[in-house]
């Protein structure tokens, strides 16, 4: 049960090749940078774009199977779509928008409207039924779009950047509402986003897509703790190194060594937070410390700390206090030592 999709799309500049499984009732967040192919994948799942190869099955029904020439049109798939800017039909009232899917399926106007009214009440939009979409706030428009999609009981719900159209102030509230509404939905949900917070809060599982490929997937805490690509590491705010471990020591980068807290063997990812990095003018003393000479490349305000980007045999991000910046005279081109305690470092198989 649920969604089982293997999708290939070749668009010249983008080669999308993704396997995606979503269980019934599960919410999967597709996380990736712009241009990674997330929206293309969404279009394919919705039946708006034919895949070049692959097979898509939903609750045991084969929707598309390129090898067997099988293809189901968007209107017969039972896949709901909430678009990035919601795309409420501007010529229809809020109530008519929500009732649209039932009307299209041949229900009587009265019946469809009655049902739509119930949905609007569920979404706390009861008093807005006569309004035009242009008169709604972003959060209200999103709930109308969600009600419009869910009223026809799709087996798969697709949300494309559901919070991107909102201003930063309303985003947390709408995110919480969305999370609550999705919890009550029994079908599969796929949310496309490039915002890690959105993916962490809304997704029960995160699938990271880069350049048309799935590069990592797992529970949010797993992805946040153990990033596997530079993109994910940057999103979750960790330094990520790749190396080869032999017991307590791993060789990384340009002949540098990292001391680990635990034994490991073979190719490993090594992650540590920027706040764990200490910058000092001299090589620090102490056995459990990893230390590398670095050259400061860039300084940037980061909350009430300063994020230092430094190059060297091991390139690192370090979060230091403004006081430390002043004491050490940190500026682009300044040389320093970066050190990290072994206990702050997490190493996991690559």
């Amino acid at each position: 049960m649920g969604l089982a999709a293997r999708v290939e799309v070749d668009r010249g500049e983008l080669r999308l090749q993704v396997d995606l499984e979503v269980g019934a009732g599960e919410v999967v967040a597709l996380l990736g940078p712009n241009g990674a192919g997330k929206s293309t994948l969404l279009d394919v799942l919705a039946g708006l774009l034919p895949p070049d190869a692959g097979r898509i099955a939903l609750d045991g029904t084969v929707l598309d199977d390129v090898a067997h020439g099988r293809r189901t049109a968007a209107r017969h798939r039972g896949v709901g779509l909430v678009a990035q800017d919601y795309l409420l039909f501007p010529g229809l009232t809020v109530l008519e928008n929500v009732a649209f899917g039932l009307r299209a399926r041949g229900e009587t106007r009265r019946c469809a409207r009655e049902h739509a009214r119930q949905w609007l009440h569920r979404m706390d939009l009861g008093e807005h039924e006569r309004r035009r979409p242009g008169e709604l706030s972003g959060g209200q428009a999103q709930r109308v779009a969600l009600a419009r999609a869910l009223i026809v009981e799709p087996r798969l719900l697709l949300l494309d950047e559901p919070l991107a159209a909102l201003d930063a102030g309303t985003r947390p509230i709408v995110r919480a509402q969305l999370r609550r509404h999705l919890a009550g939905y029994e079908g599969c949900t796929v949310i496309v986003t490039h915002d890690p917070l959105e993916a962490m809060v809304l997704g029960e599982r995160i699938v990271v897509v880069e350049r048309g490929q799935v590069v990592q997937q797992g529970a949010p805490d797993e992805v946040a703790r153990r990033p596997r690509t530079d993109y994910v590491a940057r999103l979750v705010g960790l330094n990520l190194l790749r190396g080869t471990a032999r017991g307590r020591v791993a060789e990384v980068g340009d002949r540098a060594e990292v001391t680990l807290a635990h034994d490991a063997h073979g190719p490993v990812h090594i992650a540590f937070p920027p706040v764990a990095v200490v910058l000092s003018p001299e090589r620090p003393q102490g056995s459990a410390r990893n230390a590398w000479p670095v050259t400061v490349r860039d300084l940037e305000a980061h909350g009430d700390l300063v994020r230092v980007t430094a190059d060297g045999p091991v390139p690192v991000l370090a979060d230091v206090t403004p006081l430390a910046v002043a004491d050490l005279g940190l500026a682009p081109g300044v040389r320093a030592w970066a050190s990290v305690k072994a206990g702050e470092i997490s190493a996991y198989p690559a």
Partner: protein
Amino acid sequence: MTGHRRRTDGRVPVALLVPSVLGVAVLVLPMVGLLLRAPWRRLPDILSSDAVLTALRLSLTTATAATALSLVCGVPVAWLLARTRMPGRSLLRGVVTVPLVLPPVIGGIALLMVFGRRGVLGGWLDEALGVSLPFTTAGVVLAQAFVAMPFLIVSVEGALRTTDRRYDDVAATLGASAWTTFRRVTLPSVAPGVLAGAVLCWARALGEFGATVTFAGSFPGTTRTLPLQAYVAIGSGDTDTAIVLSLLMIAVSVAVLVAMRRRWVGA
């Protein structure tokens, strides 16, 4: 006033001023002339004369019918041009907009060649169905539609091009057929464009002369519309009637412009 030198100091070069005054004169003087020569005292009588009322009634009916015909056929053409990727689309766009630049008389001759008694379709229509279009009120409607429909098509196609096609995608995911989507989503969203096109189309049909007189002739009550009536009046020396009819049509044109002003002039 500050000490900054302005790019233009308010003076207009004579080489631009003189021609522009002439140009405005060419456009405005004729209408001023009409107003100056208008027989204001006889105006109510002329307006309520049988000939004028008949022509007015005929003009209103035929222009409205031509607009209806243009809506029924022109909106789908606009949709085809804006939304499909069929081959030969740009050729089709050229063909349907030719009447915009074609002298209407030529249109009338062309219509005769097709629907005339010995025309390509006319003979067959006459024999098989007993329908003859030339020199009938239906012929007037056809001639007006020929000249006016392109205005509607161009306007509606423009409106369709600016709407987001993702609306169609969303409608499809909600189970709507292409026809339902067109009817309930696309059409309402281009309604202002359709309305503007229809008003333009109606105004153009109301003023149609060349194609009508060539294809439908000038028979009182059946094909003699307002412009034809004005032409007949001036030809027979009844200048007053010609002036009154002209003022009537100018009033309609101004009303159309005022109605459309918010759409084209200031936003």
